[in-house]
């Protein structure tokens, strides 16, 4: 099928050109992060230019490349602190957040998309509204609820709950929007055949909504993966910290050890890239003509 469409598509060469330009824009700052990480030093970059710099001098100066390659920063990150353990905690928390967040979001998004009930608009709006609260003053009440009332300080569960609830509003809206685009006829015919709501949801709706589920899963994971202030506040045991908390040790107060931070940042980015690679195939698994018509 793709072959037949190619005739109507844009020529590919200019597209590649555009993409390449944007690849440079995207990668340039990141290359500096790599440069810092692999420099073995602790300073952020500066460009080094000779007197009366020519065009070429300047060009050479702005290309990110460390003077000496060294993995010293990476080894220090792992040997100074139990960073590997913290990465593991992050993985556990982020995965659990993803599962819980996506599950809760799917069920309520499905209800919001398919049922008409009083309070539906208010409920949907309230998810949106929740994103409007500036979080600056929420920390203390949240601490009281999670640690004092629920007693979930220094537990995975405490953070998982907080993170999934943080991620849910976006996930619900995203999934609801996507569910809306799935034709109802499919479900109605299944209903005629006597399938229950749960079966319809898992057998028909969910498989068709794979791209949206992939997006929400990625989003939930990221929410949990990058957060540090709540993790640092709710966890009172060194073995329960997460990777972002560990990263923060390098650049607090007066001390700014950017080399370690960059190395740590690169390491923490790897699982996200891996997850994205895994989710890619779902992200682009679109509706096929046949499936819709049933």
């Amino acid at each position, binding site marked *: 099928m793709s072959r037949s469409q190619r005739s109507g598509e844009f020529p590919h060469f200019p597209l590649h050109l555009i993409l390449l330009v944007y690849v440079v824009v995207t990668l340039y700052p990141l290359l500096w992060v790599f440069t810092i990480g692999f420099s073995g030093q602790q300073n952020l970059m500066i460009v080094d230019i000779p007197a009366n710099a020519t065009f070429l001098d300047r060009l050479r100066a702005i290309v990110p490349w460390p003077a000496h390659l060294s993995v010293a920063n990476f080894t220090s990150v792992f040997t100074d602190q139990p960073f590997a353990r913290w990465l593991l905690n992050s993985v556990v928390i982020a995965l659990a957040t993803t599962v819980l967040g996506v599950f809760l979001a799917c069920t309520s998004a499905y209800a919001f998309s398919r049922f008409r009930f009083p309070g539906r608009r208010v409920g949907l709006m309230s998810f949106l509204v929740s994103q409007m609260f500036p979080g600056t003053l929420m920390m203390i009440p949240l601490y009281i609820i999670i640690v004092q009332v629920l007693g979930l300080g220094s537990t995975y569960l405490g953070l998982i709950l907080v993170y999934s609830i943080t991620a849910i509003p976006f996930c619900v809206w*995203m999934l609801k929007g996507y569910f809306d685009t799935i034709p109802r006829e499919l479900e109605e015919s299944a209903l005629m055949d006597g399938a229950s709501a749960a079966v319809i949801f898992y057998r028909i709706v969910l498989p068709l909504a794979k791209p949206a589920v992939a997006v929400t899963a990625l989003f939930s994971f990221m929410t949990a993966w990058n957060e540090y202030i709540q993790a640092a506040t709710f966890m009172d045991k060194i073995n329960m910290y997460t990777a972002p908390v560990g990263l923060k040790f390098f650049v607090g107060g007066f001390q700014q050890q950017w080399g370690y931070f960059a190395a740590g940042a690169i390491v923490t980015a790897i699982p996200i890239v891996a997850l994205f690679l895994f989710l890619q195939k779902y992200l682009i698994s679109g509706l096929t003509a046949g499936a819709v018509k049933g």
Partner: protein
Amino acid sequence: MSKEPSHSRRFAAGVVAALVVGVGLSEWVLVRARTQENRSRAERVAVVALSAVTEVAERAGGAGDSLRRAVATIAGQNPGLKAIRVLVLDGLSLEASTASEDRGEKAAPRRLTRDEKPIYDQAQRLRAAVETNRQEGAARKPEIEVAGSAGGGLSLAAPLEKDGSVVGMVALETTAVPTAPRTDWLFPVVVVAGAGAAFWLLAVVMGERRALLALFACLLLMAAMVVMGRHAFTAVSGDRRATESAVAAAVGADEVSAAKALPELAPGEGAKPVHPANWDADVFRRPLGVIGADGKVDEAKFEQGLATGSSKTARVVGTFTVVAIAVLLFVGFGAASRLGATISKHHQAYTYTFPAIFGMVLLVFLPFLYGVALSFTGKSLYTSQVPLSEIWVGVKNFVDILGDFHIAKSTVTGLVWNYQNIYWTLGVTIVWTVTNVAYGVGMGLFLALILNTKGLLLRPIYRVIFVLPWAMPNYITALIWKGMFHQQFGVINQIIQMFGGTPVSWFEKPSTSLFACIATNAWLSVPFMMVICLGALQSISADLYEAARVDGATRWQQFRSITLPSLKPALIPAVILSVIWTFNMFNIIYIVSGGDPDHSTEIMITQAYKFAFEQYRYGYAAAYSMVIFAILLAYGIWQNKVTKATEGI
């Protein structure tokens, strides 16, 4: 509904429920007010005694045998005092004590023992309070501390001064506070029963006329509340009167006992009279002035106090009446029963949405309510331990924030903007938000469309690369961007110079500084939008394009009439949410420009942060946050109206 339930029955139920709520609340408040009055009476009497002892102790020079004898004399005179302690900071010395445990080996004078640290700390606290208040010329920190003691009495402390500076502390412990007068439960019950019976009689007369029933129910309810209000006011003003007489009596009695102790002092000090008019004081040791110099209650001042009390009672009862009427109408007009029916009818939908909503209520809306309450208070670092009700300021914070129109002033050099003004900040925030979201959506969609081209080589690789800025912690990438905008060592200026331009000092002007922030955030926001668009593009069936092509539609027409409408359901929520997130995006501005120059590139959230964590004005910061919330809410409602995002297909 097949059969309408009877109006009179519904209203009867409504009246009873409303009466129970309204009268019950009033009664509850009355009981609390009387308990409080009882407690404050005991406190004032105790403060009078404390002031009397302190005056004598200060005259005794705060130390020595004469002090101990004088203190013992006073303690012997006043049966309400369980113990008097006089403490001197220097040398951690307990100078005098009449406490039963301080006998024999532990008799004063002696050094404080290790477990007496709290008393010493209290004395230090009072000394610091007096010094702070003097330094600031204000009454900010309490100079008399009152707390409940273990035996059900009160434990009070006041600073002991010598030559104008605090050298120690006088502490009192009183015997148990008498229990509050029993509040009559019969009265409210009679009110409820009477009003209920009256409604029943009326209902019999009127039958099923709904409007009339509602009217009479309301009138009856109000009458009942007025009766309750008068009842409460009488009780409270009686208590007030009792308090003033008790305090006046205490001043008289303590004057006598102080006079008895005076001969124990040095002859020069003992001859001078005491100053009982100053003894009835507030926690800042400022005389209240209700008890006159003659030891009698100043009637004018007392009446004045009663008048404010009366208007307060009216306000409270008024509020409860409104609540009660709401209950009445809710039940009376049948909303309650309809609510029940709705829940059971749509139980499936509610079950599906309940877990997420419950979580949101617990972890988002409850903390938010706290924020709302905070925004109506003057909570600050200095009032961290004060209950919110005591620092309630109403809408003052909001008036201060929104009523400040000093946006700019004209000077000889032209218009000078006031960058701290909320309207300037709002303007900056809007520019910031619109630019970022527009770029993010535009670029994200553009890249997604290209990457959605069938058969394009290397697509997975492009996709991963474009997602990378999202994957890297933005703390470091934002700093890299800041570095790229450095005047001398930044890449951007190097590139400008490569092509012969002159370097720009990016953070010197508001416009270029904001540009640097926006460039950073725009770069960060593309991946998210691209992923959303990629996902959304998959929902478009290829058949649609096929059909359009058959009809001879151009590529632009296809985009306008197929791609965009199909993207809408997924894209609209993403746009709304990213507007909200960008509006409240704290990190990037904080790291890249830090508000430079002169706060001109602050956005609203960074300002709120500044008020909370640099200026420690939590109430004000909460109000500022509420303004942010209101703006976003207005936007959300508007956007929802335009795009119908909450509607289904």
